[in-house]
């Protein structure tokens, strides 16, 4: 397995950006209009990390359109990657780690799909994947690093080394990753797409700058004045963003720092279903939580107001 030159072609990526309008105008739209910008075969990078600030509302809306042949990448891939596998939407998963977390053990879906060769999993070290997005965010084809050298991971993506032109030392040349689409969930934005994130930033800002098309959901849409009062907190400028959707609880049942906590019991129920019935259980889950609810409000209603309020209470407690 080696990566496609398209992933690190910085000149093509720059041309694509130069041909794109960089509007500071209105970005607010609907979830469906946002994900309509995704084409079959695209590489989509998801923001957040594991079950933190996952753009789940965008992922669900995307899957409702029954996409095909996507490549998806994320630093630590959680069960949104399993959904994409079982939905038949992906040809490749790029990540450093995939599962839900320590208490839930090995992912049976990953085992089924990767061991059979149905969906290849391209593994990088966590930093290397971060530097792939950062190299792209910087507009260059690679970044030098001291990680991953000497490991089996070098061969997975066909990584190369360079001899440092100054010291002569051998360095890993981490290839850039320019995704077609970035899907991100943030705390707040104004209607022009200027985005602010609270708590850990994960890799979202790099991914936004690396991608050709940037789709964002925000917990809160604030006034232009609010952003201008705290511009130091803006991590993604509006002219980068193509579509913005107001989606409170847009990561739920994953967490959103300071706003709501994750729902480990929900994850356990999901995994328990897979343990008992395998991949068909994920298909049932998709019917219930992804294909079934016509709107985000209908989706949230499956959990109920009490659960949402409790997650919010727990989330706020963890930052006070």
């Amino acid at each position, binding site marked *: *397995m080696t990566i496609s030159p398209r992933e690190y072609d910085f000149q093509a990526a720059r041309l694509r950006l130069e041909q794109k309008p960089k509007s500071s105008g209105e970005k607010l739209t609907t979830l469906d209009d946002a994900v309509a910008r995704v084409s079959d075969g695209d590489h989509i990078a998801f923001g957040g*990390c*594991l*079950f*933190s600030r996952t753009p789940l509302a965008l992922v669900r809306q995307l899957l409702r359109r029954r996409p095909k042949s996507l490549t998806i990448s994320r*630093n*630590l891939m959680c069960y949104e990657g399993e959904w994409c596998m079982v939905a038949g939407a992906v040809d490749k998963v790029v*990540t*450093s*780690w*995939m*599962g839900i*977390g*320590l*208490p839930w053990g*090995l*992912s049976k879906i*990953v*085992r089924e799909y*990767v*061991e*059979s*060769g149905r969906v290849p*999993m391209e*593994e*990088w*070290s*966590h*930093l*290397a994947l*971060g*530097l792939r*997005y950062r190299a792209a965010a910087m507009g260059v084809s690679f970044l030098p*690093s*001291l*990680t*991953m*050298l*000497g*490991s*089996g*991971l070098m*061969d*997975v993506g066909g990584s190369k*080394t360079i001899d440092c032109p100054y010291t002569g*030392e*051998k*360095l890993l040349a981490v290839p850039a990753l320019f995704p077609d689409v970035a899907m991100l969930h943030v705390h707040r934005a104004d209607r022009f797409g200027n985005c602010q994130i609270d*708590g*850990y*930033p*994960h*890799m979202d800002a*790099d991914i936004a700058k690396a991608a050709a098309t940037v789709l964002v959901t925000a917990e809160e849409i604030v006034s232009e004045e609010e952003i201008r009062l705290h511009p130091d907190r803006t991590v993604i400028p509006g002219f980068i963003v193509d579509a913005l959707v107001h989606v409170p609880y847009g990561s739920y049942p994953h*967490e959103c*720092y*300071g706003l709501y906590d994750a729902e*480990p019991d929900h994850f356990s129920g999901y995994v328990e279903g897979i343990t008992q019935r395998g991949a068909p259980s994920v298909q049932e889950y998709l019917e219930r939580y992804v294909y079934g609810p016509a709107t985000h409000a209908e989706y949230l209603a499956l959990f109920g107001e009490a659960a949402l309020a409790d997650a919010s209470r727990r989330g706020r407690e*963890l*930052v006070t």
Partner: protein
Amino acid sequence: MSVPANSVTVNELLAVMGSRELKDNTTVFTGVGTPMMASGLAQRMHAPRLTMVIEGGIVGPRWKPGSLPISTNEMRAAYRAQMLPGITDAFLLAQRGFLDVGFIGGAQIDRYGNLNTTAIGGSYDRPKVRLPGSGGANDIISLCRAVIILTAHEKRRFSETVDFITSPGWLEGRDSRRKRGLLFGGVSRVVTTLGIFGFDAESRRMRLEALHAGVTVEDVRTNTGFEVQVSDTLTTTKPPSEEELGILRMLDPARQFL
């Protein structure tokens, strides 16, 4: 407390032995589970100025007892942190040389401390068992000044060869690690449920340096898939104290990680 103080669990033993390896006024790249317990214990025993850096992009958290994180990328892991620099930048602190010690584990480990968390059997493309992957383990072992491996000691884990090198220890020994461009760090200790290993300074092969109380060299040999080298100055570790166990159980009263 349902568990009497004299009955020590596997994870308690590893956490206590791991904590004793950490020094005050240093930094540690730590994960959830046993490494987190070891780091939290060290801070409360002998290393109050130990700073934890967490994979989720978190510097200097003070985890809340009874509310410990299950992932390195969740709010509990960031509780009362001093800085949230982001994931890439947290690892770059390690690349710059700011991280004295890193903790990792693995499904398979060989005599040179190479670890596999990627795939067992078959090929990379068609493995017999697909494991979750490196996450930050490869970065931690590549970039920290020293690395401590905390693991249960089982024959299937301590293997003649690893099926895939996810995280490079001393590779094929001697100067092979440096030759591949890994200029810094390396695995320094392997803390297991049977004892503590170091690495020979020349050959870079794993060497038994201490046994836990009641364990024999024969026990270690029986549970190791490669030839066990034993230090001339083999010692016995001091069992976990009441104080150490008390702190661990205060940190994790529900015994989620103990």
